[in-house]
């Protein structure tokens, strides 16, 4: 979604802000005096002792805090150790220098999809990106630039609004539906190994939105389903357990105005997907399936 704020949105925003005031949100207090004493000293010591350090240049923005209303970049120096990821570095900076540094994260192992960030000009998962790999030569790079995902509304610092992405995902009826289940107690539906293999990659999506953020088409067309949602549709359309009638229905969904035909095979989605899902391939296959099924009826 583009971050161009329309007037209407701005208005909505204001009313929301008012509403917040009415319900007595907590916060927007003065900034408390917080003593990082111990942690900061520790960090200084560690930075001094470290053989190598990394500079993080991090995008900062907060709609209601003076000094952050205008976005800026803050720089944090972090001691580097082998195996350190971008997320590790961010957490270090937050815990030792500025606890208001805000970003989403949870699993630290590339399964929760919460920390897709724009690192050195590319969409990546913070936890899955080794600092050492950001440099062509061996060893950590001097400065790492970290920004929120492009083409998304920034909520604060590195946190972006994911609602639009969720809406697109949910628009493709992302749930299994069939009318026929095998009779008999404890009977599973049968699925061939080949078929499971076919949908395997498509089922790996962790909803991180990196693909959506990287796609120029999605940036320009707010209603475009986007690669992740189309991939989700693929996951079900190709699952033989759902049956032919369902597949037709799914093809109708992805053929809608802002569906597969919007994709211009730019491949950036495939390039950034942290789960290595061949998104463009899946989109293209759906286009062909759609054409095939249309010709069948013709």
């Amino acid at each position, binding site marked *: 979604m583009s971050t161009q704020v329309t007037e209407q949105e701005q208005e909505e925003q204001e009313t929301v802000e008012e509403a917040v005031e009415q319900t007595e949100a907590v916060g927007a207090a003065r900034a408390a005096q917080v003593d990082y004493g111990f942690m900061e000293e520790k960090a200084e010591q560690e930075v001094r002792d470290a053989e190598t350090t990394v500079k993080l240049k991090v995008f900062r923005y907060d709609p209601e805090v003076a000094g952050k209303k205008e976005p800026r970049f803050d720089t944090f120096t972090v001691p580097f150790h082998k195996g350190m990821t971008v997320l590790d570095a961010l957490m270090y900076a937050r815990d030792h220098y500025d606890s208001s540094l805000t970003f989403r994260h949870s699993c630290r192992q590339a399964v929760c999809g919460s920390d897709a960030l724009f690192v050195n000009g590319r969409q990546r998962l913070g936890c899955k990106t080794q600092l050492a790999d950001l440099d062509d030569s061996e060893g950590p790079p001097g400065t790492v630039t970290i920004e929120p995902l492009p083409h998304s509304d920034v909520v604060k610092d590195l946190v972006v609004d994911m609602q639009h992405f969720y809406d697109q995902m949910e628009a493709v009826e992302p749930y299994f539906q069939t009318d026929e289940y095998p009779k008999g107690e404890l009977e599973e539906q049968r699925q061939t190994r080949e078929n499971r293999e076919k949908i395997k990659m498509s089922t790996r999506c962790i909803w991180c939105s990196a693909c959506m953020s990287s796609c120029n088409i999605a940036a320009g*067309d707010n209603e475009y389903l986007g690669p992740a949602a189309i991939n989700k549709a693929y996951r079900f359309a190709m699952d033989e357990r759902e049956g032919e009638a369902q597949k037709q229905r799914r093809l*109708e*969904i992805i*053929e809608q105005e802002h569906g597969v*035909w919007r994709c*211009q095979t730019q491949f950036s989605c495939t390039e950034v997907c942290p789960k290595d899902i061949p998104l463009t391939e899946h989109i293209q296959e759906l*286009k062909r399936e759609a*054409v095939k099924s249309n010709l069948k009826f013709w």
Partner: protein
Amino acid sequence: MADYYSSFEPKGTRWLLQRLTAAFLVVVLAFHFMLLHFVNHAADITFMGTNLRMQQAGYFLTMVLFLVTATFHGVNGVYNALVNQGISGAPKTVVKYGLALGGVVLVAQGIRVALAMAGIL
């Protein structure tokens, strides 16, 4: 979500036709280029030469087909691009008929020219 469904979905059709015409164009365009820029240099083109070539029925047909396909491919391509860019409502309708008209005019004029070249007109 798709609220109606016809057995032949126009969006997919335009996409498909764009590919089919492209495949056809590869052949004729290559032929056209070779013939008119390499075999006969553009600078040496005269009405005589054109006339001679155009009198062969096969060549004439190929050229007309080339024209029709290229026009369709080009006009359809522009329309697709605009639709993808998010054009909708009234402008979309205007563009649609505008481009269709432009295409028809182009083909009509092209055929008139071709007939003249073949000396039929």
